[in-house]
């Protein structure tokens, strides 16, 4: 129960990060904020005891998927209409 405060804080930050990643009009910013979202998710899972899932999310979600997103945006337009 001692970690309930930590848990609550990260859960609320997750919602903020998700909304921000979808609100910003710059796709590069959106993908960086999405990396932040992934890393917060990783922290939450590590706190819940799912260390393997947290490790996978840290390498895949915050690492590879951000790089792949940015590599795509590099070839596409950076601005988004919404």
């Amino acid at each position, binding site marked *: 129960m001692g970690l309930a405060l930590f848990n609550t804080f990260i859960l609320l930050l997750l919602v903020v990060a998700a909304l921000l990643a979808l609100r910003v009009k710059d796709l590069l910013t959106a993908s960086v904020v999405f990396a932040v979202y992934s890393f917060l998710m990783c922290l939450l899972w590590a706190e819940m005891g799912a*260390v*393997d899932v*947290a*490790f*996978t999310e840290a*390498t*895949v979600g915050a*690492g*590879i998927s951000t*790089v*792949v997103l*940015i*590599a*795509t945006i*590099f*070839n596409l*337009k*950076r601005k988004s209409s919404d």
Partner: protein
Amino acid sequence: MKLLSYIPVLVVGVLLLYAAKDFPEWGSPDAPASKSPVSSHFIANTGVDTEVPNMVTAVLADYRGFDTMFETVVVFIAGMAVLAILKNSGRKKLVKREFEVDAEPDLIVTNTVRLLVPVIQIFAFYVLAHGHVSPGGGFQGGVLMGASFILVALSWDLETALIRFPLNWTTILGGLGIFLYAGIGLLSMFLGGEFLDYSELANIFPVSREMARYHAMLGVEIGVGLTVTAIMFSLYANLSTEGRLQRGL
């Protein structure tokens, strides 16, 4: 359209929140998911059956090995599909991208990466091999290994990384990983057990049946790691250049 999209969202939300009221309390050990005989069997018997301390690795590579094998096949197929979609599709002549700058590879960055990449690769092998006793395994080790090559590509340029890891290796390595996985399964089948029943490997290796499962899991994880390494690097190399494989990010 904007307003119309809220209708399904709200309907789904109300239904899910209504259902969320009936979920077991968070963290209760008496929740149905935790009470189920399957997961308690995994927790209680993993040590006896396979002698692997990390239950997640044991369940991933042994009890649910069939599932993991085809997940690996899915990753391989996705990589091949990206290769097939982007191969020879792009503009033939190179156009300058919107935010592209012509710059030499930076001295400080390249030297730091020269320092770090061996450490990352050793750590990837450690994660792969130590997945039995600590968090880690084939997927994580493979992703770390692929990330080290991506780091080389980011700090120098893609051509330098492609010299170290040519892209026609990816098909071979990915296929080899799946072949290794399925081969261990088939070997145990030929030795009289079922597909992916590793304990039969004790007939030809001088170990007990439990340790045969322990070591076969390592072989399986190496197969997964090979496939994931190859596919992660090929994903980056293809996506950053639209399949041209020159002038990357």
